């Protein structure tokens, strides 16, 4: 198992060209439930948005007798069924918030802690001024805040408005009983529809920014961010190789703070031999 990858390919011994290159440690960040949540969430948002668009603006116009057709009926069925998938998935993620590793909890906005505010402003400054210096293994203050307000907030908003509207189909039924209060709160069924639409577009705006930031971070930090949501593993730079007295050495001490990391935990695991002769 190759625990450490450097800027150099793994298949060869590091040479002088690697001097100054960072060494990366592989850290298991996103556990399987988190990754499953992410993709189920992504897929259901896409399906919900597409079917929602059809429900708001039906464009297929089948001809013939209505008893032969059930286009709107099926689209609504898919929308509702997916809404349940979305919700169960959402709730499962909340469970995993408590049950998972520490990264499953990373990014909670600790607005009562001054240190959280400092991290937030530091993150904002880094992105605003393009001074990228703090890659995060989990979520940073800024991304955590965004996920909480936008992704989770919108999720709840859609769940409540959505089930409120769903309850309309069966007055007095379960969903009406538990979520029906949302409608009068928002000023009636029509207004609730309007909010449901607005929130849906919020996801679109969120996804655009989300994908951009992910690609940006992956490019800048080379931390394997994009692949991490498939493999669960992020790369984290631990040390550099440096040349000292004609030998290649690994600089600095390995960092051991992360539990459940599959990467190396101490220098003995490092596959770069410190005794290797420098090419020069």
């Amino acid at each position: 198992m190759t625990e450490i990858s450097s800027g150099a390919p793994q298949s060869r011994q590091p040479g002088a060209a690697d001097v100054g290159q960072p060494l990366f440690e592989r850290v298991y960040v996103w556990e399987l439930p988190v990754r499953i949540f992410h993709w189920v969430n992504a897929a259901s948002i896409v399906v919900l948005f597409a079917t929602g668009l059809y429900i708001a603006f039906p464009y297929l116009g089948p001809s013939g007798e209505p008893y032969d057709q059930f286009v709107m009926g099926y689209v609504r069925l898919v929308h509702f069924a997916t809404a349940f998938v979305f919700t169960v998935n959402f709730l499962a993620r909340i469970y995993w918030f408590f049950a998972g590793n520490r990264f499953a909890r990373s990014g909670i906005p600790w607005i009562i802690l001054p240190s959280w505010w400092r991290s937030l402003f530091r993150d904002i400054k880094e992105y605003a001024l393009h001074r990228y210096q703090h890659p995060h293994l989990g979520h940073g203050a800024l991304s955590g805040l965004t996920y909480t307000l936008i992704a989770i907030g919108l999720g709840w908003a859609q769940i409540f408005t959505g089930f409120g509207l769903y309850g309309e189909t069966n007055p007095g039924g379960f969903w009406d009983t538990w979520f029906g209060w949302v409608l009068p709160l928002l000023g009636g069924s029509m207004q609730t529809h309007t909010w449901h639409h607005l929130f849906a577009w919020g996801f679109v705006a969120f996804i655009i920014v989300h994908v951009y930031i992910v690609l940006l971070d992956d490019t800048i930090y080379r931390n394997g961010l994009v692949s991490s949501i498939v493999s669960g593993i992020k790369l984290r730079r631990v040390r550099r190789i440096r040349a000292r007295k004609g030998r290649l050495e690994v600089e600095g001490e390995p960092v051991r703070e992360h539990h459940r990391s599959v990467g190396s935990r101490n220098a003995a695991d490092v596959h770069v031999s410190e005794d290797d002769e420098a090419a020069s």
Partner: protein
Amino acid sequence: MTRTPATSSQPTTYELLQRHGVSRRSFLEFCASAAAVMGLDYSEVERVVQALETKPRIPVLWLHGLECTCCSESFLRSSHPIAQDLILNMISLDYDETLQAAAGDQAEQIRRDMIANHPGEYVVAVEGNVPTKDGGVYCTIAGETFQHILEETAEHARFVIAWGSCATNGCVQAAKPNPTGAVPIHKIIKNKPIVKVPGCPPIAEVMTGVLTHVLTFDRLPELDRIGRPKAFYGQRLHDKCYRRSFFDAGQFVEHWDDEGAKKGWCLYKMGCRGPTTYNSCSTVMWNGGVSWPIGSGHGCIGCSEENFWDNGPFYSRTADVPVPGINSTPEKIGMVAAAAAAAGAAAHLGTLMIKRARGSKAAEGDGSAASAGDEGGQA
């Protein structure tokens, strides 16, 4: 809610009807149809008959606030042949600015006497809403503001009926920008049970149904979460609409004169508010069951729903969102937000690339240009 006969010397509804020459047969017919409208079991018709035969009529003070009197008009056009007679006799309308014979001081005296002599017995029916701005001057009756009249009259009422959308949710007077500060009556009357009978106007049968229910069972009909009788406002038009099969099929009218319009397809894309409107139009219908708006080929405009004037335009399913200065649907706003997000991302990337280009030029000299990855510190 229990009720002691208020004015037992008063004739019952049936006695009055007899005096007006209504036959027993017509009377029973009415009782049966009233029971059906209320959603009662056939076996309960007997109770309606009995109530109308034996119970003294309910004294009603019918107040008119800021309104157009369409509720009264609707009420007076109740469909059953003897309904008009019956309705006006079923309840004893002791005070109604539109219908009473008395005028001026006399009329106001009737109202005051009722409050003084029968506290807790009469019902206050309110048509219209209450302008609250500038001390309520935008609706005054006999020199008093309507707000004051309403508060004074409702104080000792048994319960309050809010007739129509004005009294229930504000209707057109309360639509933005609401120049008179009009508010529905539940914003003014907080300590009395209020039955809300929205609609602009409510269907006559619904209005009589509510009154018959009260008279028959001596209590308010079962109300939903926001105070509307469940029997009439429990479902959306959409759930009982005869065009629903076209909706489910995905067959929609696209233009007023297209093939679909001629075939009676669903009016959803023409802005029909049936899916968001709670009322009895699709079941009870209008004008004695002759037809109803969707039956006549026009979408519902949601007249019994809160804010229906502000949820326009009536011919589009997506309501305008009041963004200052522009009329926008949620979709337009959403697309703008998505475009703004994309533009923001592009601008961010653009500035990054400019910075990079500058940085690498500056660094070319010493040959130690740091890669992006190298700039990164520890997590």
